[in-house]
């Protein structure tokens, strides 16, 4: 690793590195994925040749489970997830764009039935953000609230 890169984000021995997070969603991803006691490093607005600006999160000794990956894919489908073992990438993973996101977001529309009944929210990815399957409204990702995945 070049000296310059090392200065920006230190490497970890084992855990998970989430790279290529859209810069404006990095802190949202941190909020959604972290739990008290987690050790992690966050880089925001880092230069990226492919994205312009990006975010990165490095978790020490933590591997994201299915619920976390679904959550991450919902807000940053273009992110890559690298599993680190002994300072090397043991697995590399592209998340892909989920068609449907179930049970993760809370509908920002207070008059949506999902905020009043025990109904898991269902959102679909659309050009402008997420469309609620129930109230049919579309919200940009920045307006989305979410259920924190169980730790």
């Amino acid at each position, binding site marked *: 690793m070049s000296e310059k890169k090392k200065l920006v984000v230190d490497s970890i*021995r*084992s*855990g998970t590195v989430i790279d290529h997070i859209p810069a404006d969603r990095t802190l949202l991803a941190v909020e959604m994925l972290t739990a008290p006691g987690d050790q992690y490093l966050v880089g925001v607005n880092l230069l990226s040749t492919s994205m312009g600006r990006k975010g990165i999160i490095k978790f*020490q*000794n*933590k*591997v*994201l*489970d*299915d619920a976390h*990956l*679904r959550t991450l*894919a*919902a807000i940053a489908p273009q992110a890559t*997830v690298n*599993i680190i073992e002994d300072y090397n990438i043991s*697995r590399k*993973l*592209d*998340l*892909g764009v*989920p*068609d*449907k*996101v*179930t*049970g993760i977001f809370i509908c920002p*529309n207070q*008059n*949506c*039935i*999902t905020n*009043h*009944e*025990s*109904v*898991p929210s*269902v959102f679909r990815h659309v050009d*402008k953000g997420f469309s*609620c*399957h*129930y*109230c*049919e*409204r*579309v919200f940009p990702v920045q307006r989305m609230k979410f259920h924190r995945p169980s730790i």
Partner: protein
Amino acid sequence: MSGPRPHRRPPFDRLRANGGKFCVMDEPLRAPMAPKHAASEFRHVVSINDFSREQLVRVLEVASKLEHVRDDRLKGRILATLFFEPSTRTRLSLEAAMTQLGGSAIGFADAHVSSAKKGETLYDTIRVLTQYADVIAIRHPLEGAARVAAEASSVPVINGGDGSNQHPTQTFIDLFTMAKAHPGLLDGSKEFTVALLGDLRYGRTIHSLIMALAYFRVRFRLISPPSLRLGDEYLELLSARGIPFEQGERLDEAVSGVDILYVTRIQEERFPDPVEYMRVRNSYQVRAESLGGAKSGFIVMHPLPRVNEIDRSVDDLKVTAYFAQAGYGIPVRKAVLCLVLGRL
């Protein structure tokens, strides 16, 4: 401190089976109920967004055939009307439609007389009602309630209005009324100019109608106070479909060169800010003298109820279509009932 905790085996085995992509497409936690009856053309009528142009035309064709029919084709079938919000036309025309075809209706028209008052969930109410009725019609103040009802139900669900979201059978009625006056609308033989006047921001009938008319050859005049303009998502939809539209604020722009004027009530109950409602509530009043210079074949529609946006001086004019429009609720809802119950 000991060394790093051994981490759990990541659940990535599925990657190999999925070409390296982690599949995050998961299904709703609650699968839709299996249908109680044999296949029908439409399972539920929840949102106009679920309907193709062909399906819309099909509903109108069936409505046209059933317009003067009174028989027993729905004999023994029960409609449950669950109206958690006030309604006159929707509930009564559904019950009348059911009765005209030999069926019967049960239900309530006030949430305070149902178990919702005791805290019963909509899901439970629907699961119970599916055992009493063959088809359910619901009106609810919360958006998405009809979708939840449809997913909980083993019998067809008809949305009679869910908050400010959808009112699909009203849209069928609006299209039916338009097609009666202008048969060329459905076959696309001519382009029609439709003016939408009033509350374009909160009105659910406006939103559903725009989605439906976007399938046909129309151009829109969108006339409203600035604060009640149509939402960007609908303007973008019109642009994406290549449908011409103009926005304006003056009543005369809604008449001159227009084929259909669709007036809506400015709905006090949808305004988050009462001061804003007071500011715009009397923005327009269509009077007989406002309609001078209208095109031949011009009609005035309104989903009703009206407050004062159409003066009584318009009621007996040849161009008046809103009372007939309310009457078409019966043939259209007969068609919907027959289509969802598979009894044509």
